[in-house]
């Protein structure tokens, strides 16, 4: 790759789009390779640049702006390449496969499961209503129990008073007793009042229990649908896992090759331990993925790849060097 290509800002690797970077100070640079090194005072920070790539425009006048193709999925995993770059390789490889458009035998299953899931909208469960019905049934039950006890007590008293009255009549000593008839009448009135109350709350208890049963029956069918939904959601999840595994599988050989190639090309000490280097993983992902929005590359890393143009060539991605 010649440096001319980068200078005129045209797409020099087939399929790699160019981009334009506008800095807050008005400076405008065209990709596919923009080298910002050596201008420390006006250069935005790495995170400002990353954000600019991710969000595109418009931006605030104090922020840099990048005009480029929207980043693909893999881009986020390798947006910034430096000596301390970390990467979740499996997630990145799955993203690469999606960007490449790799199909798997599980795609149709997934689409199908997602369609079924969308088509399924379980009947709503009115929880407030259920809750109110449970409370009503509980209150009616407790009230019935309380009244039933009261009725038993008062009935006992009435019986006792009746017996006492009968004894009094038998003893023919009514004059000395403190009007037992009055007490009996009062107790009988209380009993009849309580009995009436009891029959009312007992009716209410039955009504409340019926209402609760009805609501619970309705809820049961809504829950059947929710059951079906959970099963579908699990199926979607399993499909996604299978698709992901197939995606990773489909690109892992190419990833290994890309990594080995890069390892051969890299000079210097940005990759001290090739076997475990996450930077090397990230570079291989960048090389493998169809990267269309610029990546931020630390100067040392670009130099280790043989300079800006060689880095551009080897990663096949538009670059901003800093």
């Amino acid at each position, binding site marked *: 790759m010649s440096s001319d290509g980068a200078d005129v800002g045209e797409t020099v690797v087939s399929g790699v789009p160019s981009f334009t970077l506008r800095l807050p100070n008005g400076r405008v640079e065209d990709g596919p390779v923009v080298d910002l090194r050596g201008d420390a005072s006006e250069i935005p920070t790495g995170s400002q640049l990353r954000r600019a790539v991710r969000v595109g425009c418009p931006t605030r006048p104090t922020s840099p702006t990048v005009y480029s193709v929207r980043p693909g999925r893999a881009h986020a995993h390798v947006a910034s390449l430096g000596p301390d770059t970390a990467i979740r390789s499996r997630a990145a490889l799955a993203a690469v496969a999606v960007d490449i458009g790799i199909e798997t035998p599980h795609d149709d299953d997934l689409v199908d499961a997602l369609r079924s899931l969308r088509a399924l909208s379980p009947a*709503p*469960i*009115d*929880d407030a209503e*259920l809750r109110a019905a449970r409370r009503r049934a509980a209150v009616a039950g407790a009230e019935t129990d309380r009244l039933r006890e009261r009725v038993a007590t008062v009935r006992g008293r009435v019986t006792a008073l009746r017996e006492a009255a009968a004894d009094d009549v038998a003893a023919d000593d009514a004059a000395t007793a403190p009007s037992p008839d009055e007490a009996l009448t009062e107790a009988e009135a209380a009993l009849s009042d309580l009995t009436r109350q009891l029959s009312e709350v007992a009716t209410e208890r039955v009504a409340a229990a019926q209402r609760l049963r009805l609501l619970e029956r309705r*809820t049961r069918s*809504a*829950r059947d649908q*929710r*059951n079906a*939904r*959970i099963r579908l*959601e*699990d199926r979607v999840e399993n499909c996604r896992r299978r698709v992901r595994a197939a995606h990773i599988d489909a690109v892992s050989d190419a990833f290994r090759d890309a990594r080995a190639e890069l390892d051969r090309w890299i000079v210097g000490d940005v990759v001290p331990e090739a076997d475990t280097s996450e930077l090397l993983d990230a570079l291989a992902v960048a090389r493998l993925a169809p990267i269309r929005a610029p990546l931020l590359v630390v100067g040392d890393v670009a130099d280790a790849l043989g300079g800006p143009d060689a880095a551009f060539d080897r990663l096949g991605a538009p670059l901003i060097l800093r």
Partner: protein
Amino acid sequence: MLLVVTYSRRARETLRNACRSHEETVVRRFGRAALLRETEYGAFLACRLRERHAGNVQIERTEPFNEFADAPDTVREAASAYENRESPSTPYDRFAAGTDHPTSDAMREREL
């Protein structure tokens, strides 16, 4: 015991976490259901689940089933006789025909 059944993925996840951190209160765990000990703490966990996931949580109170107290003798005896039948391929209703054992339809219609 308290039977807690969940009907959404999030409710299931909450139940799983609750079971993991309160093993002493969990009698049994199934996929998206669990049996909790009938203590106030079991009720506390069940109430929390219902509070958070409302209609996606079903809570039932269960009791051990005593076939000598909870099922009519005819039913228990029919089950026992059928399980000890001589020909394993005989369907129940054919087995019950011509005997005193209740038909399956009759049993379906009667509540315990």
